[in-house]
């Protein structure tokens, strides 16, 4: 059945902190070439909100004065941007060429099995998000894993449990 003309469905929009929007608005108002700085603005928005849900993208679109479809196009293009809330610790497994030949895929699988999630997903307790990333430029340490800003080099499958435990403990 085709739909009637209707207003944009706003009932599935999530409420986000007002002060976050204010912070972003202040940032955007200080940017000179707003349109040309879209990616910077989105970086800032993700830093503030932790992720880029559609309400934040729509906010950016209206503040910057470019169509929401264009903003969404950019957000969906770059794997750095995430549209879902992420966990406290972002585990990024490098899949660059050097890491790949050193069996990084097995490391990724081990994290997935240990955390009970697929890549791109977040654990229910919102503690960990698992992702694969392109070469991070630390090939000498292959296979390499980032947890937040911390680097773990020469990671073996057996280390995975310990790494996770280390961050779990840190939170207790």
């Amino acid at each position, binding site marked *: 059945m*085709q739909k*009637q*003309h*209707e*207003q*944009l469905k706003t009932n599935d929009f999530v409420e986000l902190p007002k002060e976050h929007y204010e912070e972003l608005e202040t940032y955007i108002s200080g940017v000179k070439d707003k349109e040309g700085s879209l990616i910077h603005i989105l970086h800032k928005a993700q830093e503030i909100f932790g992720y880029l849900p559609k309400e934040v993208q729509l906010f950016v679109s209206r503040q910057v004065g470019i*169509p929401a*479809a*264009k903003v*969404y196009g950019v957000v969906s293009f770059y794997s750095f941007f995430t549209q879902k809330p992420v966990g406290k610790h972002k585990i990024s497994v490098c899949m660059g060429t050097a890491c790949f030949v050193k069996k990084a895929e097995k490391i990724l699988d081990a994290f997935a099995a240990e955390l009970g999630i697929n890549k791109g997903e977040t654990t229910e307790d919102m503690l960990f998000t698992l992702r694969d990333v392109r070469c991070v430029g630390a090939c000498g340490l292959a296979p390499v894993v980032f947890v937040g800003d911390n680097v773990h080099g020469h990671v073996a499958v057996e280390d995975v449990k310990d790494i996770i435990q280390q961050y779990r403990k840190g939170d207790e």
Partner: protein
Amino acid sequence: MDMLNVNINGMDLQVPKGTTILEAAKKCNVHIPTLCHLNLGELGVVNQTASCRVCMVEVDKRPALVPSCSDKVTEGMVVKTDSMRAIAGRRTSVELLLSNHPTDCLVCPKNLSCDLQSLAQELGIREIKWEGKRMDYEKDLSSYSLIKDPNKCIMCRRCETMCNDVQTCGILSAIDRGFDAFVGPAFNLDMVDTSCTFCGQCVAVCPTAALTEVNEVGDVLRELNDESKHVVVQVAPAIRAAIGEMFGMEPGTLSTGKIAASFRRLGFDGVFDTDFAADLTIMEEASELVHRIQNNGRLPMLTSCCPAWVKFMEHQFPDMLDVPSSCQSPQIMFGAIAKTYYAEKMNLNPEDITVVSVMPCLAKKAEAHRPELSCGSDSNVDIVLSTREYAQLLKEAGIDFATLADDEFDSLMGESTGASVIFGATGGVIEAAVRTAYEWITGETLENVEFKQLRGMEGIREATVTIGDMDVKIGIAHELGNARKLLEDIRDGKSDYHVIEIMACPGGCVGGGGQPYHHGDIEILKKRTAALYREDEGKAKRKSHENEQIIKLYEEFLGKPFGEKSHKLLHTCYQPRERI
């Protein structure tokens, strides 16, 4: 002008600086196949993304093949378009596109009018060498106007150019990356949930069936075969200058008489002309303009015949909804009169009347479903066919359109003047309104009815027409990006126009999203426009207020223009809508 020497396939020629290889090749009669490329000349519609890689040619001293549509000629350039390498390169591009394209051509809505299909034929491709992953997206069937099938998208970006650069609606954008990339709205919303105006220009330029219209031919056949229904049909002005193209006739051939004949053959109970309703629109709109001018009302007044333009305004300028005329479009006015006056005269129950429209437009399909444009629970207009669907209906019914003898429209709602015919071209509505307003305001007879300063293909035009002791300043825009400029001037208080005509599509309705595909040839639009002015010239009556059936309609039913009954039946209101 700086001239450059270039050699193409052994031929020397000189071209102005800035010429692309493709344009230079055309000058020496060398055909290079293209797919994503689109250039509508003075209409300012240019898609030069070089994304399809179909126009690749070999350039001396360049290691890789280059896209001829975007690469410009440089001094002394030596180009080969017919070398083995160039031919193989182009072929590979098309084969790769086909490796991820459905091959259901026989049942595809674009069968025989698909540019990719034509290209495969032109290049003699007989097998698809590579078998790989296929895109698998759901179709968007959410709107009344258009269907989006991303599986047939070849990422040429023509629709994106139309939607963003020309129409400035910004609905369609490339989403995601690499193999997963597709064109769609923000957050992959259904089209109906976006601020899409349904102008259909994305459909008009889509080379494949990634964007097509919602097809309602079957609904018309069903109604025509329902004994209990009294089915009437109206045809918009722009159709008569374009439908012939679907039957091998020259672009710009006028087919008014054949259209009336074809409707009768199809078995419609009432064979009518939207031109009648266009004359009615002028009666109301010219009255409203005179009323606004004489009562210090809101100026400028903007025309409201174009439903894509109306929806654009609701989404993009929700603070300015008092600017457009309150007149419904001719299509809706026709339906309103058919289900009241006509029903009364014919002694019919309005619920048994089905109103079918043949329109050059896809936004008209959505317009017909606007709840405020219905009478009670019943729509004023029930089914809207595009020009292309009308051709399909004729073909299915076995009507050899080109050989039909001319026939006339039925009386009551079939008479029309030259003023209404030119509604189909940019500037036409305002010219028609001026013809009537002039006589009403001055009380004099207008001898020369042609206001040539209002005609043309420029995106924004202006003219001043002296009516009595008043200089009426007129603005005209076609394409929504041009409309936006005029609207922004009004918002900023920089506009001194009295009245503005706006049409969403390039050239007005002749270039509508439901018209036969022009495949990037702007000459076709010009020929359609010329045909409409020709029909106007040949009409005995060329002013809307001289239409005798209209005069009778007011005497017997409506009372006076812009009066109480008109307000109830023929006028509407607008609502602010979100922008997304």
